[in-house]
């Protein structure tokens, strides 16, 4: 993976730029000491690191605007950062950039239960948004597994999903409005605690734009009443095909579970060894969770059981208590940790049409054999969002490159069967150079034009999302 060479003229003006930033920020909000900027050298894609020229941690939208005005005038690239949990390198710095960290802007501005929204500063963590409203029986629905750490800013940046998005949608479906600062330092309000914009749906294109269009400092989020209860069922099947067919039938059966999670044999074995959740010894396993009152849950689970029985499950375990629910989820929730125990891994995130599941899983198995690498699959089956985990040894020369090459093959496969490169983690730098596989030049050009309008000088997170060859002329200009 290439990154553009740092702009020598920016590096040469380092002191002058830092002095200007210091003039508009409180003393503790500017970090330029090389030992301290290292804290910002990577996000959760730790294979790639580069300390920034400086990091700023503003506390107000006005400070954000002041920083952006200076960076715009001095032509300094800016990389917005929430909590730095991106798995795609979305918050990876370049040596000539300023990291604009939003983490100190974490307040709640307003909650309104009658109008069902919360207005927050975007440095607030995902989980603490729900934390702010749950005493009134509400929650913020998108719940990425990283929710303890990740910020609303990054969730909006990546249009993040979560375990419950089959029913409640992803970030974009739960976002009502934003306050956004453009690269020129203009503060815009887009949307608010009502439905629809008066004009174009700019909110829709801002969400998921990976810090390319502006710095989001505040958000109005839809909050939802918490369901009365939820309970999962676990089922094992003799093959991936059968499990896939069962998923399809559950969906066709008119049921709307909040989650349908899928694990294949390598993943089941790894998590069993690690978490001892008592999963059955089988080829494929589904965890299906439904919500409602106890009667409603019983009714839905009875329907799901009738469907599952047509596929002769080799195991079927319905949770009857809080404790059993926890055990059923235990293995799934520790899947990534379990794989981590077995070695280094890269986690892919392509989406495929649900009907292609059996074929894609078979092909992934063949690819694993060809490359001589091990792969485990765990994913959100209801919406086809796969998470193949490719194991490798970071200490062995060439192993990372091999794993990345295999990952690229899998993602191209996802595109070939009608899916996409990334369902929730974003493109960042990780999938940047694969964008040609999914988009023709004109398709990509149309996206670049949107960036041209929001950030004509191409200073916001400029080396991400789009292949460098495509953006070269723009970044230079």
């Amino acid at each position: 993976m290439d990154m553009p060479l740092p702009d020598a003229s920016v590096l040469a003006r380092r002191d002058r730029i830092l002095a200007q930033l210091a003039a508009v920020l409180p003393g503790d909000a500017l970090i330029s000491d090389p030992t301290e900027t290292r804290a910002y050298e990577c996000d959760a894609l730790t294979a790639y690191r580069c300390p920034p020229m400086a990091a700023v941690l503003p506390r107000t939208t006005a400070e954000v605007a002041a920083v952006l005005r200076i960076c715009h005038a001095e032509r300094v690239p800016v990389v917005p950062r929430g909590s730095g949990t991106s798995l795609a390198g979305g918050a990876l710095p370049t040596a000539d950039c300023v990291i604009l960290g939003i983490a100190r802007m974490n307040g709640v501005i307003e909650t309104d239960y009658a109008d069902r929204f919360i207005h927050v500063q975007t440095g607030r963590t995902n989980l603490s948004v729900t934390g702010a409203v749950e005493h009134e029986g509400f929650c913020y629905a998108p719940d990425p597994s990283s929710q303890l750490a990740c910020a609303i800013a990054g969730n909006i940046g990546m249009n993040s999903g979560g375990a419950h998005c089959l029913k409640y949608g992803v970030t974009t479906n739960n976002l009502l409005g934003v306050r956004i600062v453009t690269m020129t330092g203009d503060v815009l309000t887009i949307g608010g605690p009502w439905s629809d914009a008066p004009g174009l749906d700019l909110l829709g294109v801002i969400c998921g734009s990976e810090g390319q269009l502006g710095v989001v400092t505040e958000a109005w989020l839809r909050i939802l009443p918490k369901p009365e209860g939820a309970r999962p069922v676990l089922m094992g099947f003799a093959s991936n095909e059968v499990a896939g067919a069962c998923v399809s039938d559950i969906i066709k059966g008119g049921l709307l579970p909040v989650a349908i999670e899928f694990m294949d044999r390598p993943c089941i074995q790894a998590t069993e060894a690690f978490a001892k959740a008592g999963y059955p010894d089988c080829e494929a396993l589904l965890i299906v969770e439904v919500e409602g009152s106890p009667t409603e849950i019983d009714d839905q689970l009875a329907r799901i059981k009738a469907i599952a029985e047509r596929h002769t499950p080799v195991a079927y375990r319905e949770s009857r208590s809080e404790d059993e629910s926890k055990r059923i989820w235990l293995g799934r929730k520790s899947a990534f940790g379990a794989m981590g125990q077995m070695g280094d891994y890269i986690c892919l995130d392509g989406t495929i049409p649900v009907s292609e599941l059996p074929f894609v899983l078979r092909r992934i198995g063949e690819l694993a054999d060809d490359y001589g690498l091990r792969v485990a699959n765990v994913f959100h089956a209801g919406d086809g969002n796969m998470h193949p985990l490719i194991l490798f040894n970071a200490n062995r020369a060439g192993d990372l490159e091999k794993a990345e090459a295999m990952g690229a093959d899998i993602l191209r496969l996802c595109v070939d069967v009608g899916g996409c490169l990334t369902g929730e983690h974003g493109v960042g730098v990780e999938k940047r150079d694969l964008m040609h596989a999914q988009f023709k030049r004109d398709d990509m050009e149309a996206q670049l034009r949107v960036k041209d309008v929001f950030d004509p000088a191409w200073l916001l997170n400029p080396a991400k999302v789009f292949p460098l060859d495509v953006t070269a002329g723009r970044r230079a200009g």
Partner: protein
Amino acid sequence: MRPMTEADLADILRAADAPLVIRGGGTRGIGRAMGEVLETGGLAGVRIYEPGALTLVAGAGTSVAEVEALLAAEGQRLPFEVPDRRGLLGRGGDSTLGGVVAANASGPRRVQAGACRDSLIGVRFVDGAGVVVKNGGRVMKNVTGLDLSKLMAGSHGTLGVLTEVSFKLLPIPEQAVTLRLAGLSDAQAVEAMAAALGSPFEVTGAAHGPGQGTFLRLEGFEKSVRYRVGQVSRHLARFGAVEEVADVWPDVRDVTPFHERAGDVWRLSLRPSTAADVVARAGAEAVLYDWGGGLVWLLTAPGLDLRARLGAIDGHATLIRSDSALPTFAPESPGVAALTKGLRAKFDPKGILNPGLMG
């Protein structure tokens, strides 16, 4: 002009040098676009329908009625309850999927299932220079690149001519029950709807017609609906007795009470708790609340400048039907307007796509 393929459409747009009015079925377009009519009805046909994956891909010119019938045969539907605007606007014709997307047309179920833009998972369109663009696809979760599908939804044909659209679908529930509370003032009604929508009982419709009553909808499996009818009734006991009534939702969706009535029609997007106050200040001849007060329809005297009368509101007003010269869309803030203008210049450099619409 009526292209039959995307390639024909691209040729037309590449060659065009005068304003075009983009028309699907001609059932729901608003505003005063002027120019030669470009019809998309030829770009019809269902490309992919996978009931087991809850996804549909179809040409933008495909008839909504045809699609709804196809889905219903499999017990599925478009989640956002497509409104029929023919009665309100005094039009004929057959609504198309592309028109629905261009207007981001969404009915009462929006409060629970989201708007048209939330179900839209992919588009193909031709921009004003004749360039074919694809964005999104046929899978529900997709964050690859910028989401131009959302940008196209509700762009009223000003950024490109849609040729293909993809949707996520939902099953049609076993049962739907409509509940009515009688005799509430507008303010009480909005409060009652907020209480219902803020409960865990999954209300999929919340509307109020002054003098008609306050209506709530529950949908799902029969047992579940029965249970929730009881719970919602108890939950709202302080607002009076709840009775089960016949389906009112097509009338709410299509604003039937305003059909055949003279006057201007306004559509207000509001912060729900402010709706009753805004309505009291509007002095309208007829009112219908939907989305728990988040959407308010007003029938006013012809030519009344409602925006001037109301002043600042938490939301905005769109003029849906009028012979006056008042602008259709509420003005945007200067910064947002500059972005809109920039986007239109990029996607429609010749200024030929519905010029005059949307500011």
